[in-house]
């Protein structure tokens, strides 16, 4: 379906077909730039956000990614106006967003559990934001119906306008929730774990669908998720949060390939870790130097991270990581092997092609092809 459905309405009421992204012509159709400046949020004595700063560019699809308790939902709610930071600034374009109430912020919200109005039909749900406008700004009833129809087409639910939410599947309900949020022509779209309540297959379908919708409509969109696969698949940029702090901001590739901390490395994708020492540019595992160059790293203890898939078997050259096979199992189309590595028997997990044959107790030597080194700064907090 290629129709660039037009639902954006200048308040004068004339319709202009829109191709591609929403044209930036002033007014609400302008995708918004969001600035978060040093936002702190403490609940009583517990800090949920420790001075978070970030820029969200117009038309971007940004993921706030982190485990529960990382502060990502708190940050989203602050953007929405459902919560007020203890200190800090939030700017929508150049305006101080904190001065605006939820109603005034013109932000579209989509919740994990849909939050649809159960006593209203799909059409009434979607049209709600338009019906509650003050008389001066309220479109005519015909106009509202037209917009609702256009939105229903956009989210591919055209036949269902008279249904009640209880008669819809989870995926359909979430699409109605989207349409409802889009109806008010929001400056910013905020999604709180939007696919969390859905089955795996529906989740995958809707992910793809969300990306399509975003490309069509071009809203600045922020979504919260704890699912790193989802974040990497969907977002233009990912913001990784942990314990109320931003660990890293970057494109999915940057986050995956160049994580800048042990937390990000282990949170995104799979990881194996070894405690090592850096000695004069060499990485040393249990007193045995590894053939991995570590120029520019300070001497001292460090952690070596690599992904299980990024190792290769090294049976010849001296200096690879020696170990004993502790367990072998199948993993998809490959083999996962638990290895007790180094002289002290550190447990790591590696992945080798399924042709690999070995047995428990057998000696093995592996070398990571790609890896990252994180020196221990102070004692870990």
């Amino acid at each position, binding site marked *: 379906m290629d129709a660039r459905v037009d639902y954006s309405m200048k308040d004068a009421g004339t319709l202009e077909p829109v191709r591609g992204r929403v044209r930036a012509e002033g007014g609400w159709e302008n995708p918004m730039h969001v600035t978060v400046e040093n936002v702190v949020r403490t609940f009583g004595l517990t800090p949920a956000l420790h001075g978070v700063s970030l820029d969200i560019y117009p038309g971007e699809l940004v993921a706030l990614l982190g485990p529960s308790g990382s502060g990502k939902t708190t940050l989203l709610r602050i953007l929405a106006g459902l919560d007020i930071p203890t200190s800090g600034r939030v700017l929508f374009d150049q305006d101080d967003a904190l001065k605006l109430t*939820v*109603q005034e912020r013109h932000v579209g919200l989509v919740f994990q559990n849909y939050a649809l109005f*159960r*006593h209203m039909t799909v059409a009434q749900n979607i049209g709600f934001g338009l019906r509650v406008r003050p008389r001066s700004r309220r479109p005519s009833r015909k106009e509202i119906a037209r917009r609702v129809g256009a939105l229903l087409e956009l989210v591919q639910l055209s036949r269902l306008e008279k249904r009640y939410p209880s008669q819809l599947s989870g995926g359909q309900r979430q699409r109605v929730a989207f349409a*409802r949020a889009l109806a*008010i022509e929001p400056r910013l779209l905020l999604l709180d774990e939007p696919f969390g309540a859905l089955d795996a297959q529906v989740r995958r379908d809707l992910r793809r669908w969300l990306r399509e919708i975003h490309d069509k409509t071009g809203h600045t969109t922020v979504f919260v998720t704890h699912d790193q696969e989802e974040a990497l698949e969907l977002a233009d940029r990912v913001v990784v949060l942990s314990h109320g702090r931003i660990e890293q901001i970057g494109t999915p590739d940057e986050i995956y390939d160049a994580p800048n901390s042990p937390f990000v490395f282990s949170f995104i994708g799979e990881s194996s870790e070894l405690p090592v020492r850096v000695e004069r540019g060499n990485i040393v595992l249990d007193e045995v130097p590894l053939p991995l160059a570590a120029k520019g790293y300070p001497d001292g203890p460090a952690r070596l991270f690599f992904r299980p898939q990024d190792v290769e078997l090294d049976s010849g050259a001296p200096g690879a990581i020696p170990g004993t096979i502790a367990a072998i199992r199948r993993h998809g189309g490959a083999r996962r092997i638990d290895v007790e590595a180094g002289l002290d028997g550190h447990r790591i997990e590696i992945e080798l092609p399924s042709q690999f044959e070995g047995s428990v107790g057998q000696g093995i030597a592996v070398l990571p092809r790609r890896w990252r080194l994180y020196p221990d700064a102070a004692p870990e907090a």
Partner: protein
Amino acid sequence: MAGARGLALKRPSAIPGFGLALGFTLTYLSLIVLIPLAALAIKAASLGASGFWEIVTAPRTLAALRVSFVISFIAAAINVVFGVIVAWVLVRYRFPGRRLLDAVVDLPFALPTAVAGIALTAIYARNGWIGGLLDPFGIKIAYTPWGIGVALVFIGLPFVVRTVQPVLEDFEREIEEAAASLGASRRQTVFMVMLPALLPAILTGFVLAFARAVGEYGSVIFIAGNIPFVSEIAPLLIVIKLEEFSYAQATAIAAAMLGIAFIVVLLVNLIQAWQRKRSGHE
């Protein structure tokens, strides 16, 4: 495992005691409830349709039924308004004494009706705490239909509060947040989103309060005045007929009241079924 009296279990069960339990239950119910009600039905039937109709449509009977049902309706309506407010305040706000107030709501359930009756009369009589305040304005409450209304509001309030409270407690905050984010003012959110969602519970509460009010006796007869055609309630008329040994007439009125009560119970069940269908089981 077969049940008693030829009632077969839908599913075999390893748990014993079905026959005993069900048998005892049915026997108890028969003796206490079914046979007496059958007597009522038989007696009512023995009047014949025209006899029944005659009694029920006698002027005094009609007046009593009118008094009972109309004032019960108004009282239940008042209870809806204030019951929703009370439920809202108890669920949504925190203030000193809230838990105490929550407990007080159950008072009409626990207090014997006669005690409530004489207490209300004492308060609203001409020399009572409130009756005394209103008397100079010529407003009389005790011994008038107003008194009946007051008593029926008293006994009906807990029904509305207790049916609305749990629904309000379970109300998702996110729905309110969604409405606000769509631009709805607080007033719009409450009246366009929340109250309609509460409507089934409110209706159930109304119907329960109404049904209870219609049959109420003890709280009402002291404060009512009991003047035929003016402030005589239907249950009182039944008692009067019984004391006159006009069993047939008493039965006819009782049957009419039961018929209406049955319709009310049916309504409640229908409302609840509709409520479940509309909002769906999540």
